[in-house]
Structures are given as C-alpha cells and as structure tokens.
C-alpha cells in the first residue's frame, strides 16, 4: 500500500488528516528539511512542499513572496526534490506531496521529474495549472513511477467534470474550498460541506479541503467533514514574520500542534 493510502486508511473514521504546506526553499534551502521534521513532530499526517515558480498565478501575495524568497535563496525544482530525499533518510513514513506549476516540471521533463520524485520518496504531485485534459502525458509517467497525481476540484467545477477529475486522480482529491487564490479568507464552511457530499458521490477517494483555513477554529470546522485539512498561507505568513530559522521552526511547530489538536476525533472507529 502507498504511504498516502496507508495514512488515510489508518485515520478513516477517526479524524481528518492534517496536511501543512510550506514553500520549498523558504526562507532558505537549509531550512526545508528541519521544517518538515518539525511539522511531523507537531502532528502533520502528510506534508505538502511547494516547488518554486516565478509566476505563481493561483497564489495570493503570501505564497508569491515565499516563492520569491525561495528563488532568491537559490531554490530550484531539483533542489526541492533533493530536500525530500534528505528528509526521507530520517522519515520513511510521512507522505510528501510536491505542489507546483507546469513549466518547471516540463523543463525538467515529465519522465525525469517523475523518476526523480520516486527516487527521492515523493508520494504525490499537484500541478496547479494542469487540468486532467492536458495531463495525459504526465499521468503516464507518474503511473509508471508509482507517483500519485492529485487534481484539484473547485466551487466552479461543473457536476459533469467531477467524475473526469475523480477518475484522473490517485491518492486523494483536493477540494479548493473557495473561489480565489491561496491566502484568501472568505471560506464558507457550509458550502464546502455541501459540495463535499456531491464529490463523495462521484469518488471513493479521500477528499482534502484547502484554501481559506487559517486557524485552529476553521481547521476544526472543516475537520468535521473533510478527510484532510490543508493549511498553507497561514503557516507561511507566520514564518515570514520571524527573523531567524530557529524562531521559524519553534513558531511553526507550536502553530501546527494547535491545528492538529483542534481536529475533532470522530465517534465511530474502524478497527485496523
């Protein structure tokens, strides 16, 4: 069983998984591996790491700035994959998902990228600007290397597309809970819950919910119905406010621990 499947299977019926996001190489490449371990200590079930891109069109200012800091500090696609490989030397258990944009991946080559991901112990990939309609070639490479491809769903996804996206995805589905970019705060929890019910009708995959989850309170609300709660900008923003890497590590660990503690335990337990 893949690491991603294993985590969701173990949590099924107990509580939502927590997936924190950090931008690879922000604020420095040397910070990424210690940050990933800190996230795990704080209770992260999976980790999402951003691959830097000069033009992150689906991101708000907080993650845009993180990408700019990372690029200024010398981060590249390859370097971020290398950080995952380094993380894997001490953690063989926590699934890692890379999130990024098409152009750097195409530049490296789908084949080479998928192969490097497998070798480094990357479990899944999200390419924000690659819908399933344009993904045939990438998916073939990903399947060959045993790397999951997670596609996004949004409030604007028409009903007839749900199945297309669900069929193209492996690992889990990522429901973008609001119309907008990362870091937005106009999350409507009731809407998201209703949409998730429709998604579940077209797919047996676990469904993670992200965008607009900013604090333990919103994590708790979404954690009542989602299979995973994804938190990005709120973490990156706190990191940007700190002066030293040690302060960043300490602060992130406390914040993510609070997020994790807020996720409600569910009554019905399944025996494993």
């Amino acid at each position, binding site marked *: 069983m893949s690491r991603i499947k294993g985590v969701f299977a173990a949590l099924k019926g107990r509580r939502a998984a927590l997936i924190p996001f950090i931008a690879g190489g922000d604020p420095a490449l040397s910070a990424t591996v210690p940050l990933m371990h800190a996230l795990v200590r704080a209770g992260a079930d999976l980790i999402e790491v951003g691959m830097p891109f000069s*033009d992150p069109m689906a991101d708000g200012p907080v993650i845009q700035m993180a990408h700019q800091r990372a690029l200024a500090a010398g981060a590249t696609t*390859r370097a971020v994959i290398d950080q995952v490989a380094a993380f894997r030397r001490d953690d063989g258990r926590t699934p890692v998902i890379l999130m990024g944009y098409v152009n*750097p991946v195409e*530049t490296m080559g789908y084949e080479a990228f998928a192969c490097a991901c497998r070798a480094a112990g990357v479990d899944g990939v999200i390419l924000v*600007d690659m*819908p399933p309609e*344009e993904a045939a070639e990438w998916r073939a490479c990903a399947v060959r290397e045993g790397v999951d491809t997670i596609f996004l769903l949004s409030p*604007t996804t028409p009903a007839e597309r749900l199945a297309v996206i669900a069929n193209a995805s492996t690992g889990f589905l990522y429901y973008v809970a609001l119309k*907008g*970019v990362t870091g937005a705060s106009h999350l409507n929890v009731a809407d998201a819950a209703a949409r998730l019910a429709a998604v579940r009708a077209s797919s047996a995959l676990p469904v993670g919910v992200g965008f607009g989850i900013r604090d333990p309170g919103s994590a708790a609300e979404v954690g009542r119905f989602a299979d995973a709660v994804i938190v990005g900008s709120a973490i990156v923003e706190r990191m940007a406010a700190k002066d030293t890497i040690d302060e960043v590590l300490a602060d992130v660990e406390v914040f993510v621990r609070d997020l994790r503690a807020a996720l409600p335990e569910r009554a019905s337990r399944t025996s494993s």
Partner: protein
Amino acid sequence: MSYEQPDARGHFGPYGGRFVAETLMGPLAELERAYAQARTDPAFQAELAADFRDYVGRPSPLYFAERLTADAGGARIYLKREDLNHTGAHKVNNTIGQALLAKRMGKKRLIAETGAGQHGVATATVAARLGLSCVIYMGAEDIARQAPNVRRMRLLGAEVVSVTLGSRTLKDAMNEAMRDWATTVDETFYVIGTVGGPHPYPVMVRDFQAVIGEEARRQFLEREGRLPQALVACVGGGSNAMGLFYAFLADAEVDLYGVEAAGKGLASGQHAAPLTAATGRGVLHGARSYLMFDEDGQIRDTHSISAGLDYPGVGPEHAWLKDIGRARYVAVGDEMALAAFHRLTRLEGILPALESSHALAYAHELAGRLGHEAAIIVNLSGRGDKDVESVAAYEEAKTCRA
C-alpha cells in the same frame, strides 16, 4: 492549403490548450459556449459590424506611404492605419467584441491586463460606453513609462492597479488579472488583450482582429489588382499580427513577417523575442507556446523599449505558424525601432507607436531588399502619442551618458 486550427480543445498543433487552475476551467467552458453561440448569431455579428463602422471608424484606411517608400528605395510600402481607430490602436477591435460578449453573458465588471496601456484604454472605453465597472492591471514599470494612457484610463472611470511584484511589466499584470478573475468569476469578464491565454481566447481574439486583414486584402486588391508580396506586423502577444495575417493564410505567395522586440540585442539576453531566439517552449498564462525561461523553467525577465512587446511569451498560433513555416519571425532592437519611429514621423507626418515602430523598421529593410515591382503592407497597429514623453526621456538619458 487547408488550415483548420485550433482543434476542439484549443490546440494549434502541440501549442495552446487550457493550462489554468481548476477554478477557471468551468468559467472558460462557459465562455467558450457563449462565444460559439455569438459567433454564429447574425444579431451579434450585425452589432459588431455596426460598432466597427460607427464607433471605431472602420474600415481603417490602407495608406500608400510614398516618401517612406522612396526612402527605403524598393518595394512600395502601404500602411494599414489601425492607428486611426478610436482610442488609437487595433486593440479596440477586440475589446468591442469581448465587451458585447460580456454584456450577453450578463457580466457587470470588466478586468484586463495592459502593457502599453492601449488595451487598458480600449477596455476602459468600452466599459464606460456599456456602463460596466472596470479594473486594469498594469506593471509598475509600465505605469511609469506609459503615463498618458494611465491618465486616460482613469478619466474613463477605470481603476488602474499597479502591480509591483515580479518584473513589474505585462507578464505580472496578467498574473494579477488571472488572480482577480479566479476570485470574482461570477460577476467578472476577463478581457484578454492578445491572442494568448487559455482557450478560447487565442481563437476569439484572432476572430475579432481578423477584420484588419480582411479589409487590407480587399483594399489592396482594389488598389493594385493583385496580392502584396509580404505583410509585416509587430508581435508582442501577437494580436495585431494575427489579425493582419489571418485572411492571407491561404495565399501561399504572400510572405508573412512577425517582428519581435530584440531589445538590447538577442545575444544580450535582454530582449522579448521568444520566437526568434527560439530558446524554448513552455507553459505560461494558460497556454503552451514559445517562451523565455531559464534552465529551471523560471520565466525570464524581458526587455524592450516598447511596453506592449515586453513579454516573455507569444500567442500559440504564432508558434504553430513558425513551426509549419507559414510565417517568419524576426527581431528588431530598441535603437532601430526608435530610428523607425522618427523616420515615419518626419517623412509621413505620422507618429507611430513604439510597438508598431518595430514592424516599420523591419519593413524598411525588407522593402529595400525587394525590387520596385513589389509591394508590402505594414500593420501600423497604433499611434505614438503615448510614447512622446518616454521617447524624450530615453533620448535625454542617452545624450547625458554620451
């Protein structure tokens, strides 16, 4: 030659397509449906034709530039006078079309990216006319170098948002416009200003701009009783070039030249000529095309004296026309474009946009190479009023350095 591009999903060969975040996939499908309907609706076409005639002032003249021709010493040079359109450039052909579509779709708010400010002005203009609210995204560097157009947009009631991240030019303005659209899709229509972006924009903008070539072909045939030897147009995203070329694609004897910005020279790396330099193909702003990026796939900063050409990508149909050899792409640098700017002003009393000056520079050279028997058409895509201040500043700075 049969030319049936793009395919049903907006691909021109390997180029084009729809590379956007999921939030925009539904709205793009909705736009595609609305446009497909409008395209075959006689009422929509009649409204468009009436606006072209009464509001834009079409057909724009095809002007024989006699003194410019004598100066070049070869082929007769005709200018397609898109600079005489209302608002001063070809951009309005497209914004009229998209605004009519926005109205049909019940959208209340227009947004657009702009480089030179001509597309921003043309969008603000149609928004004012239709009573729609309007937000224009513009790079901070372009706001400084195209100040007259910023004032025009504000007079027209548009909000101009300065984009300060990234390279602070057209590319970054487009990023910001896409972020706005993803947030406000229900009420907003995104008016893209060139034959780029995700499907259906490249084909839709081409269709609205195709009037340029349809008129020019007819006007030239009336005038000369044959077809021209060559067409020349500048290429930023490629809309004025596509608009001129499209009606001539099947005329194999007509050579098509797209002129990109060589900035400080292709060798310097400080240019905006993805097709001519052919450094790579990649994905940006919703489509695959020729693109300027580094070995890690990060988009490169570009340079051109002309804000409207200062962009690292190009519309996907141009990529396809290059690969199949139907069009040729060349590049002209800042200094040659400036010389062409002054030449047309002094010889013909026409002040061209710096963008169009790139086409004029190449046409001058080409006309000199071709014999007196030949004739060519240059797309004079816009007028240069907006550039008066920045040309003066540029030349003052040069004199100081010298």
